[in-house]
């Protein structure tokens, strides 16, 4: 019985939150990695682009709520995803045409493109703050919990309750669907194959008649879908605040590099590595140990390896360690 209780504690406080957070990071990391693999630059506007897409979802959710449209027990924000993605893709293509295209055609070094993306970051941040302001916004509606701790305790008769928030379930399910479709697209369709070819060797791909314009266009479309969905899922689970999205860029970068930048499988995996490391290293294990250890060995302290203040620092340290010992990432990087 104690063992089951201990497992429930772990599930409740570490595994489920880590899976959720990892999914959100994974979507962002695949976005970073796609841009890096095909357009060949580190996009410092990542967090703000995700924020931009989410902003439309927030505004549309408010609008839908005001005219009385709802999605039953699911959050209304899910209904707004197609519209938000559409706006996001429009914005990305606009930025690409006005800003990035020039440097791509000139074949500028990646550093210059990264600096340009810093400029895009500033502009995007300004646009977001001018439109929606910097305040914290919650736009979650519908059913909050799938499984409540009290109900779980009643049904199972255990001492520990298991809570599953609906946003956690939605995040994990949506991520699995989106990522599955994307990997299918990259591996099985002709366009996906041409994208991988372009990423592996640009010159050879051009020789064999792949249209670079089409590849770039498709890349931005997929990027738009990933950025918007990742942003909305994060916003539903926590809350929407532009500054937080900018900060999220850092663990997302860490996830992409840890997995091997340019490799979407690596990025997907990297998201979970970062999330699990952050949560497992900052969780206070006292409650867990109380169940599995005999009474004489019960710990007095919280048994916390690091305080939660260092959450971000952990993912960055992992990144630094990976960069030192395996600069190409856990999976070989630079492949799509």
């Amino acid at each position, binding site marked *: 019985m104690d063992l089951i209780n201990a497992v429930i504690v772990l599930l409740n406080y570490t595994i489920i939150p880590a899976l959720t957070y990892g999914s959100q990071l994974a979507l962002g990391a695949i976005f970073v990695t796609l841009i890096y693999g095909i357009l060949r630059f*580190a996009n*410092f506007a990542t967090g703000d682009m995700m924020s931009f897409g989410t902003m439309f979802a927030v505004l549309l959710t408010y609008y839908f709520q005001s005219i009385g449209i709802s999605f039953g027990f699911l959050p209304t924000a899910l209904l707004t995803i197609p519209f938000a993605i559409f706006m996001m893709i429009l914005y990305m293509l606009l930025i690409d045409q006005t800003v990035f295209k020039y440097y791509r055609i000139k074949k500028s070094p990646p550093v210059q493109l990264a600096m340009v993306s810093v400029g895009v970051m*500033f502009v995007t941040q300004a646009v977001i703050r001018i439109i929606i302001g910097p305040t914290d916004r919650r736009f979650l509606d519908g059913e909050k919990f799938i499984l409540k701790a009290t109900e779980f305790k009643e049904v199972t008769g255990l001492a520990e309750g298991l809570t599953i928030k609906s946003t956690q379930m939605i995040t994990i399910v949506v991520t699995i669907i989106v990522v599955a479709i994307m990997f299918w697209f990259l591996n099985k369709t002709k366009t996906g194959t041409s994208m991988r070819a372009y990423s592996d060797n640009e010159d050879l791909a051009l020789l064999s008649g792949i249209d670079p314009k089409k590849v770039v266009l498709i890349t931005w479309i997929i990027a738009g879908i990933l950025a918007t969905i990742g942003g909305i899922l994060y916003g539903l689970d926590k809350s929407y605040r532009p500054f937080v999205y900018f900060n999220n860029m850092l663990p997302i970068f860490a996830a992409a590099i840890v997995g091997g930048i340019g490799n979407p499988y690596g990025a997907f995996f990297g998201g979970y590595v970062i999330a699990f490391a952050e949560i497992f290293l900052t969780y206070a294990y006292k409650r867990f140990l109380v169940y599995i250890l005999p009474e004489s060995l019960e710990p007095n302290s919280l048994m916390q390896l690091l305080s939660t203040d260092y959450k971000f620092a952990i993912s960055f340290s992992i990144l630094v360690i990976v960069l030192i010992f395996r600069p190409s990432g856990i999976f070989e990087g630079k492949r799509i």
Partner: protein
Amino acid sequence: MRNYLNIIVAYSIMMLLIILVGIFQSWSIALTIFNYCMISAVMTLGANIQWGYAGLINFGIMGYTALGGLAVVLVSVAPVPEAWSVGGVNMMTCLGIIIIMILSTRYILKNIQKSKKRNYLIAGIIIVGLILIKIIAGPAIEEIEAVDPAKTGFLGGLGLPVLFSWIVGGLFAAGLALIVGKVALGLRADYLAIATLLIAEIVVSIIKHEDWLARGVKNVIGLKRPAPYEIDLQTSPWFINLVEKFHSAKLDLANSLSERQDILNQLVIDASSVYVKLCFAGMFLVVVIILLIITQKALYSPWGRMMRAIRDNEEAASAMGKNVVKQHLFIFILGSAIVGIAGAMMVTNDGLFTPGSYRPMRYTFVIWVMVIVGGTGNNFGAILGGFVVWFLWVEAAPIALFFINLFTAHLPETNEIKVHLINSAPYFRFLLVGIGLLLIMRFRPQGIIPEKVIKQ
């Protein structure tokens, strides 16, 4: 002379803009902007050494700035004896353990062949060391933070003169740069950018959350100042006499003695703040000029030529027998040290240390915009970039307000769009700086004042 014409024109325009602020807003604001421009200029000089001379991309400026600020606290604040007596021994022991850990790791790296055994040994040392530190420091930290937490709750500093901390700030930053450089300099440009950015985040999060060190997010206020305090000035007779002499014409217009006294009081208060800022401006100007002379000399020395050769063609320079790795590390340390000095200057100027305010937007990306806009590889350009971008950053909101009012003049006061736009005026600074960066990168990638290559 002709060569320098564009520099002189650009600097004159900049000065004119600041003087205009002085005339239209107030001299106090103009001097505040000027001081911050100069601090920014020191930061851009540091970043420019790394990026312009050597092509190293350092997005960790925020971390070095924060360390410079930390140096001010650790050097100038008076020590807290109670905290030292309850936890000093333990903390010093931990410092000793860290030093032993580093030395023994170095010893192992040097004397044992690369093997699994070596990796296990190093991992063992680190794990044992961390556990020891956790056991020894844990209770000590709690006790230190319990000493009068509203006012102190930290170990305090050394109580030395604050100007000394500018040098210490540079040394701190140099020390961090040595570690970061050893770890990350082998990486490709964009990886290096990300790695330095994240390491800077780690540094700032340590400063933020280790309360025993510098009170963390509880901030340290009332730091020492190398300039007189306004309050002291307002009561000292020589200063009041000076103000009286300066404004005698205006004072003579007063009708009665009491009215004259009122005007004089107001003038003294204004003048005292201007005087303090002038003192800071003088000190900063000295730092900027010294750094400018040194960097200019270095740029046109054989060493500077070597650095540019390394930047433009690493393989060729390495084939000519130049030690690229060593030179990169050296210049990385040098540039970071200058940024550290700027960080210390900034905290001295503010008189308070607020770790929560160190954010990558303000302390990394804006500085980079300054370097790019001003002109990479040219020290005059870097300083100008610091001035121009900081001026825009501060004055963007008033400028935006002016234009919003101009374009929405026909709308009524209660119009929703107008109210919304006026409320979001502060965010136009991001727009202005971002568009500025994009335009410069597109149409003048070498910056306002481009790099000048002297042909031999």
